[in-house]
């Protein structure tokens, strides 16, 4: 490509705009070659640089009394657990691969999020999953669900991290495009946290883990007009295969090397593989890197340089080490039989130089590709979705009050509603007991309570929450309710929320109505987290979740970690003794908006979000925390999907008890 027009023509394959091409030419000070254009194309894709969301995400509060590192600087934000312990946690999506290969898509999603955690030096101690499928009566949805559950189970069980919490939603909006969000929580001693910054020139760069294959480059191959293709584009695999065994020995080798202080910096290889990890680490340190691509161990010897750079093969890390510690580092990796290969080094000049068999294939400034620096940031136009008219038109008076017989029918409908019904058949397939710290294995709590291995008194509470119906009705209030409900679950389990992560699953950002949903959701999350002083330590955005019928329901999944200060005082969900008095805390409002009852019994899909009073919610949560602290109650359960009825029946079933309720006359 030797003219600007030719570059613009080729860039269209990467859906890079002419303005973006000019920006590339400006950054390089010359026209890019085909490989460099591919690098910009991948790194400036929505998936890597968040160009359509970063502006809004930057408004989310990152500070908080427990936060050690803000979002962005490290791969996963960390919070302080006390006693020299830090907690890394994050949630990410693997929706699109799971739609076409449920087992492998979900499995590699679990592997990827755990790597994001142990790249900080933390040992993952808990996994959670937020899953959204089509209705189980639909055969394809059942096929997807079965594959996703087996994939999460096989990967997590083999890797040895207990899957202890999560949620499963069923609605036809997810029939073609399921939501598969995986969250990982890890713990590291504060002085053992591994940085992701290439600080010093001379540090050696290593690729650790599985050999590199033609994984995840189908998009790149499809987009590029003039990259020479060894393999015809259509038989490049669209999904990768996870290897939990390699990830386990990679984890143990890294933790052992880190214990001996042999790792100077590290980053896992996720989207855009080697390219993303080398450029981000270099950009953070304002340094450069020289990488010799022919040194990278390959699964297919004939791979091209751009394939090696962009490959998204799983279970690989980029490790930087001081030269004098290299031999010691190699010994640890030999012990665990984990491949470790030197592929280059950090240089003083902030330039990325990629060589292949002596020939320089690409050269660009380190900052060029990094999100929020070289990469573009856009604010798309948005417009309130037209369905809002339907939502605001809803009048509860139009809903007939059911007579007593119908009430019994409704009660049964709600209990058998798949979103509400017990998820035991799924949970039972996950090892939720390894690392012997999960209290929920013996007694149900609203959030999962996990002992930090192997202390006697250090416990955390974790949960994920998001009711998509509320967010569809009102993205601002709906997202606030998601955060409030996650906090409520933590508080009901004796925990103090200390940090939030989120996975924002939305449709196509170029559709103004979807972008409105996205912006309002982020604003809702921003405002409640600011008001409640809850730091957001990191997360993930997944756009383009849609089918021919249109975008999915907006699904901003919230993950929260809390500290359980007095584990001996926690109270579980089930009713305990006959004769105990049942109390509802919080007002009894006649509000069925966006309830499962209204949607599934009356088939009314459009109604406002439920009434939400942010001050009252906070006062109620503080009140519950005080009741637990003063040991005045024997059980507690938050009221969510299915309302008071489901909260009562769940507490009764798990407690093997019944209950008698007299509602006030008025």
């Amino acid at each position, binding site marked *: 490509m030797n003219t600007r027009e030719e570059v613009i023509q080729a860039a269209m394959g990467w859906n890079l705009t002419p303005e973006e091409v000019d920006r590339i030419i400006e950054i390089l000070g010359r026209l890019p070659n085909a490989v460099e254009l591919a690098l910009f194309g991948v790194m400036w894709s929505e998936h890597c640089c968040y160009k359509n969301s970063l502006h809004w995400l930057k408004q989310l509060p990152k500070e908080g009394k427990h936060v050690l590192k803000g979002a962005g600087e490290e791969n996963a934000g960390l919070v302080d657990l006390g006693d020299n312990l830090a907690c890394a946690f994050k949630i990410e999506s693997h929706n699109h691969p799971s739609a076409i290969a449920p087992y492998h898509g979900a499995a590699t999603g679990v592997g990827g999020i755990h790597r994001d955690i142990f790249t900080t030096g933390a040992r993952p101690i808990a996994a959670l999953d937020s899953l959204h499928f089509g209705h189980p009566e639909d055969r394809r949805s059942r096929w997807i669900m079965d594959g996703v559950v*087996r994939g999460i*189970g*096989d990967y997590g*069980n*083999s*890797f*040895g991290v207990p899957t202890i919490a999560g949620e499963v939603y069923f609605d036809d909006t997810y029939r073609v495009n399921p939501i598969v969000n995986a969250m990982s929580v890890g713990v590291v001693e504060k002085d053992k946290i591994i940085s992701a910054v290439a600080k010093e020139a001379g540090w050696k760069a290593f690729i650790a883990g599985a050999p590199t294959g033609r994984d995840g480059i189908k998009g790149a191959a499809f987009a590029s007009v003039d990259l020479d293709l060894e393999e015809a584009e259509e038989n490049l695999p669209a999904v990768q295969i996870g*290897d*939990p*065994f390699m990830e*386990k*020995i990679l984890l*143990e080798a890294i933790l052992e090397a880190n214990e001996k202080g042999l790792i100077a910096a590290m980053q896992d290889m996720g989207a855009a593989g080697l390219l993303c990890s080398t450029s981000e680490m270099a950009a953070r340190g304002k340094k450069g890197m020289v990488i010799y691509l022919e040194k990278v161990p390959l699964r297919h010897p004939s791979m091209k340089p751009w394939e090696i750079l962009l490959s998204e093969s799983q279970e690989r890390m980029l490790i930087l080490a001081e030269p004098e510690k290299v031999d010691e580092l190699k010994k640890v990796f030999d*012990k*665990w*039989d984990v491949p470790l290969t030197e592929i280059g080094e950090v240089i003083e000049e902030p330039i990325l130089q990629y060589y292949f068999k002596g020939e320089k294939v690409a050269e660009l400034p380190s900052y060029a590709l990094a999100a929020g620096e070289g990469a573009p940031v856009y604010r798309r136009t948005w417009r309130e979705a037209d369905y809002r008219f339907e939502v605001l038109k809803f009048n509860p008076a139009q809903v007939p009050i059911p007579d007593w017989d119908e009430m019994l029918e409704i009660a049964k409908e709600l209990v058998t509603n798949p979103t509400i019904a017990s998820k035991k058949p799924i949970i*039972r*397939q*996950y*090892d*939720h*007991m*390894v*690392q*012997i*710290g*999960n*209290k929920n*294995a*013996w*007694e149900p709590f609203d959030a999962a309570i996990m*002992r930090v*291995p*192997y202390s*006697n008194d250090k416990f955390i509470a974790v949960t994920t929450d998001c009711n998509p119906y509320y967010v569809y009705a009102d993205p601002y209030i709906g997202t606030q309710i998601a955060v409030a409900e996650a906090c409520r679950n933590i508080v009901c389990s004796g925990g103090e929320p200390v940090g939030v992560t989120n996975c924002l699953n939305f449709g196509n950002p170029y559709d103004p109505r979807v972008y409105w949903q996205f912006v309002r959701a982020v604003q809702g999350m921003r405002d409640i987290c600011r008001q409640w002083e809850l730091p957001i330590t990191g997360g993930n955005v997944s756009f383009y979740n849609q089918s021919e019928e249109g975008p999915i329901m907006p699904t901003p999944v919230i993950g929260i970690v809390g500290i359980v200060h007095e*584990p001996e005082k926690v109270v579980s969900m089930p009713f305990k003794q006959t004769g105990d008095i049942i109390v509802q805390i919080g007002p009894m409002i006649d509000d069925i908006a966006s309830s499962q009852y209204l949607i599934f019994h009356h088939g009314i899909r459009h109604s406002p979000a439920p009434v939400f009073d942010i001050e009252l919610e906070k006062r109620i949560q503080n009140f519950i925390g005080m009741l637990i602290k003063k040991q005045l109650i024997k059980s507690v359960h938050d009221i969510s999907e299915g309302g008071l009825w489901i909260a009562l029946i769940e507490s009764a079933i798990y407690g093997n008890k019944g209950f008698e309720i007299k509602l006030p006359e008025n």
Partner: protein
Amino acid sequence: MRWGVVIFPGSNCDRDVFHVLKDVLGEDVHFLWHKNGSVEPLGEGDWIILPGGFSYGDYLRAGAIARLSPIMKAIKRHVEKGGYVLGICNGFQILCEAGLLPGALVMNTNGRFICQPQYVRVETSNTPLTNLIADGTVLNIPIAHKEGRYYVDNETLKSMYANDQILFKYSDESGVVTDTTNPNGSVDNIAGVCDANKQVFGMMPHPERSAEQLIGNDDGLQIFKSIVQWAGK
């Protein structure tokens, strides 16, 4: 008396067992790396534990590849010299693959991984694992496996009964042993066995997973306490 906990690549319950023995019971415990050719400092009368997990990812067959590790030869010598071995879950699978225990573990009848608290009934108390526990006692010891269905041919099974080699059976809370209380289809609900010389033991349930009331249950501790008590005689 000393304990050794073997670490294979892919083991993931090694640190759990180590914690229960060392921190909960205050025992003298050492990790043993699978590449070692010996089990020093352990000797006669000492106990080696093959912990749960997914050695070599359970690829090909659970335990099929771990049995090739150098440590297994050292363990066979350890047993020949009067030492003891307990295989828990993956450890039990490895001991069967290595021929140190009769039978094999195959896929559960529902074809899925199962993780849950599980009642087991003690079938014999004259073994090191159960000498503190009366026959017929029911313990809650969680299981977590996909290939947990114990299978052995009828002749061998008969001789195992005759020689009192059946340790535990899956039951309900009150000790009833039937098809409905069998989570994985094991022959005769068998959950744990030992060899003829009563030196090599294998069980699918994880005693280390019900060893602390702090977490929720400590029935499993009685297995380890029995061994300590028996070894102390």
